[in-house]
């Protein structure tokens, strides 16, 4: 079945998303951008241009460049709002035979549906290019206040573009879907959408449909079609131009080149002031006069931005209040507030929303993309992609085994999507160890004893060999139901043992949450414990290495060096059990240094010509490395 794409067909910009592997993802357009300007043009050479390309030539071709067509779709020509908006656009418009609207582009009259279809057509073509397959179905979003004729016209635009519009959904509903709020019942949500050129506020309620699924209902909606981020940008530009004029006496407002640079600087300053308290607007060579080039260099504070944006924030909040009053709920009834539109990144706007609703607003999903994401999710639901049988779960807590020193070595990290399997090779901790115990643990803590024990089993029959030589492959497999199977296999003999555990089924959500919090709270002390275990393990390896080196090279090591090494071994063994990590590390270091002298002595005895024979333990440097071959950590305890 082909993909259903989700399209946020905006007044200024449009975006599209699709479900991939059960997750919604934004699709970039052919130019590599995540949003596409809702602009269409017929160039002077007769070429049809859509998006960024159309916008770039608007100055040279204003009469044939159509933008903000969403303001006209589904309207009749005589409506007062249409007449007002008509005055603000440079392209020509006429009354259609049916009383609707037609706009002129490249000498031809088009309906707003046909223009919107050109935008949708580009999105469709770019989506097909990205996905590598034909796209024929879509979910398109519209503002909650759109009436039937505006919705029908949007659907028709899709049809003209060659898309079967499976559903037209409200923009706030899409935002709620993107946050997964359709899964919560009796939830009351406010969606605060402050876009580039329009402001909308909607109050939603999630109820239960007859199929037992979450049904989102718009309880009230309000807005201002001429209030947006662009107004704030304009205020900043005016302020910068005024400040520049005060200093230089030059008014750059009518200079298109200087104006372009002011536009960019204003937007940059606005974005920077979302995180910084102060920024510097620096435009060298903004213009020039008889005295030479003039530069603009002004410090702008967040307080200044808030002062400039104040009136727009107030207007938005007054409309929000009106929408709340029109809804059947009190402000305190609202469970969640969602922010939509890039302008909501402004801290002053977030603070105003928080103050009014008495709670922090949600903006964890990119506010520029949240509507398209929600539309893609709706497409996924309609296409059957979001179905129980295909829903993949994740493991809530990490799974691992206990290794040397009581450390919990994770094989499968938490939040790994299941079904999954992982394997790792371990080794023995002592010479001639013939069995290993596999102790399976679950949790985020560093030490096995602090985690939940899921089970244990023994793999025996390992042929006697020096520590670190046997290779024990431990495999974890978690099936789609969360059932864990653990297998340990000695690679030399192929002997294996296994266990099956109903992994996470015994834990409630509260248990999982408690275990996660425990791990966070104990992160520091766990790290210290880990360091201690590592230091002790290294100390043990150093002692082992030293004893083996002395035994392997008996008679070749000078007596005084042997005595010195034995003293260092005794010293390290004495400290190994203590809690003084620095002392253990120092003693290990001293022993390692002394050991390197053995190597020199052996070489001298052999006439300074050979390296140690194959199979011999290299005396130097071994203390600092893990003893297990081809592996990451040494093995479970010796049996």
């Amino acid at each position, binding site marked *: 079945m082909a993909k259903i794409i989700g399209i946020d067909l905006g007044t200024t910009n449009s975006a599209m998303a699709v479900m991939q592997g059960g997750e919604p993802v934004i699709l970039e357009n052919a130019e590599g951008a995540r949003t596409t300007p809702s602009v269409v043009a017929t160039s002077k050479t007769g070429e049809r241009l859509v998006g960024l390309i159309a916008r770039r030539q608007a100055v040279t071709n204003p009469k044939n460049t159509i933008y903000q067509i969403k303001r006209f779709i589904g309207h009749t020509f005589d409506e007062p709002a249409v007449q007002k908006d008509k005055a603000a656009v440079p392209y020509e418009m006429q009354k259609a035979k049916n009383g609707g609207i037609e706009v002129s582009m490249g000498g031809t009259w088009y309906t707003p549906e046909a223009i919107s279809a050109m935008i949708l057509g580009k999105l469709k073509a770019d989506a097909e290019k990205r996905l590598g397959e034909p796209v024929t179905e879509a979910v398109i979003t519209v503002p909650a206040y759109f009436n039937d004729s505006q919705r029908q016209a949007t659907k028709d635009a899709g049809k003209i573009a060659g898309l079967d519009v499976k559903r037209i959904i409200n923009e706030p509903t899409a935002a709620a879907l993107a946050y997964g709020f359709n899964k919560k019942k009796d939830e009351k949500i406010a969606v605060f959408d402050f876009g580039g050129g329009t402001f909308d506020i909607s109050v939603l309620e999630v109820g239960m449909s007859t199929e037992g699924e979450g049904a989102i209902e718009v309880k009230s909606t309000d807005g201002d079609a001429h209030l947006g981020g662009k107004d704030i940008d304009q205020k900043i530009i005016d302020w910068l131009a005024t400040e520049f004029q005060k200093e230089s006496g030059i008014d750059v407002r009518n200079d298109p080149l200087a104006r372009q640079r002011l536009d960019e600087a204003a937007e940059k300053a606005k974005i920077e002031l979302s995180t910084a308290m102060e920024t510097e607007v620096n435009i060298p060579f903004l213009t020039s006069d008889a005295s030479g*080039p003039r530069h603009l260099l002004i410090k702008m504070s967040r307080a200044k931005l808030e002062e400039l944006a104040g009136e727009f924030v107030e207007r938005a909040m007054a409309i929000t209040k009106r929408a709340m009053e029109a809804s059947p709920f009190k402000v305190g009834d609202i469970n969640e507030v969602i922010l939509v539109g890039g302008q909501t990144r402004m801290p002053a706007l977030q603070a105003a929303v928080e103050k009014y609703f008495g709670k922090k607003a949600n903006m964890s999903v990119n506010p520029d993309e949240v509507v398209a994401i929600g539309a893609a999710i709706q497409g996924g639901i309609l296409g059957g992609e979001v179905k129980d*049988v295909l829903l993949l779960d994740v493991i809530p807590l990490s799974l691992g085994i206990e290794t040397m020193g009581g450390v919990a070595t994770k094989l499968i990290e938490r939040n790994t999507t299941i079904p999954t399997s992982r394997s790792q090779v371990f080794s023995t901790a002592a010479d001639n160890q013939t069995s290993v115990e596999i102790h399976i643990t679950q949790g985020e803590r560093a030490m096995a004893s602090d985690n939940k024990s899921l089970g244990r089993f023994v793999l025996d029959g390992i042929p006697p060999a020096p520590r670190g030589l046997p290779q024990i492959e431990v495999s974890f497999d978690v099936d789609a139901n969360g059932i864990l199977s653990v297998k340990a296999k000695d690679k030399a003999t192929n002997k294996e043992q296994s266990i099956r555990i109903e992994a996470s089924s015994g834990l409630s959500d509260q248990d999982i949450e408690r275990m996660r919090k425990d791990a966070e709270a104990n992160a520091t002390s766990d790290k210290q414990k880990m360091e201690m275990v590592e230091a002790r393990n290294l100390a043990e390896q150093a002692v082992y290495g030293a004893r083996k080196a002395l035994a392997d090279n008996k008679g070749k090591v000078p007596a005084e060096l042997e005595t010195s090494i034995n003293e260092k071994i005794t010293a390290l063994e004495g400290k190994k059990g203590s809690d003084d990590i620095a002392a253990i590390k120092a003693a290990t270091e001293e022993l390692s240094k002394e050991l390197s002298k053995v190597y020199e002595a052996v070489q001298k005895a052999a006439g300074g010509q050979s390296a140690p024979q194959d199979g011999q333990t290299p005396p130097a440097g071994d203390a600092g490395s893990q003893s297990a071959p081809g592996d990451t950590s040494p093995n479970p305890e010796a049996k």
Partner: protein
Amino acid sequence: MSDLDEEFIPEEDAENPTGAIKKLRERLRNAEKEAQTNLEGWQRTKADYVNLKRDEETRRMHTEERLKASIAEDLIPVLDSFEMSAKHSDLSADKAGNKDLQALHKQLLSAIKNMGIEQFGKAGEMFDPHKHEALREISVETPEDEHKVVTVERSGYSIGNYIIRPAQVSVGTYNK
């Protein structure tokens, strides 16, 4: 479904074999339908995975380009300032300061060129919105200059096929 599952036939069905067959056919139809749904889900998931792998590969290849483009975005205003400075003062004049500035500009241009970033936009070329952004129109004397780039206000920059910034230009318009 194994044969064993079908061994048990309820008494009433045994007396009415047509009914039993009907029931079995119904079960078979449902099982086939379920198998088809599962197969589609499996195929889709597999296709998603293959597509994701391909996308990741493309993204990995583009990541370096995009990373360079994002570094260039911060450097471009500096290059703009050099260009503006050249326009506002006579850099060809043989002054020590001018030479220093020219040397610095050259050095910066060569550094971004080494990153694979190309500078573009020249007066006299035909206006093309795929790489130019029109800032204003300028009246021209001859019809040949209609819709051509008259001045490049700020150069454009690209890496591979990706336009980091279009060249910002003034476009000629011929009025008889």
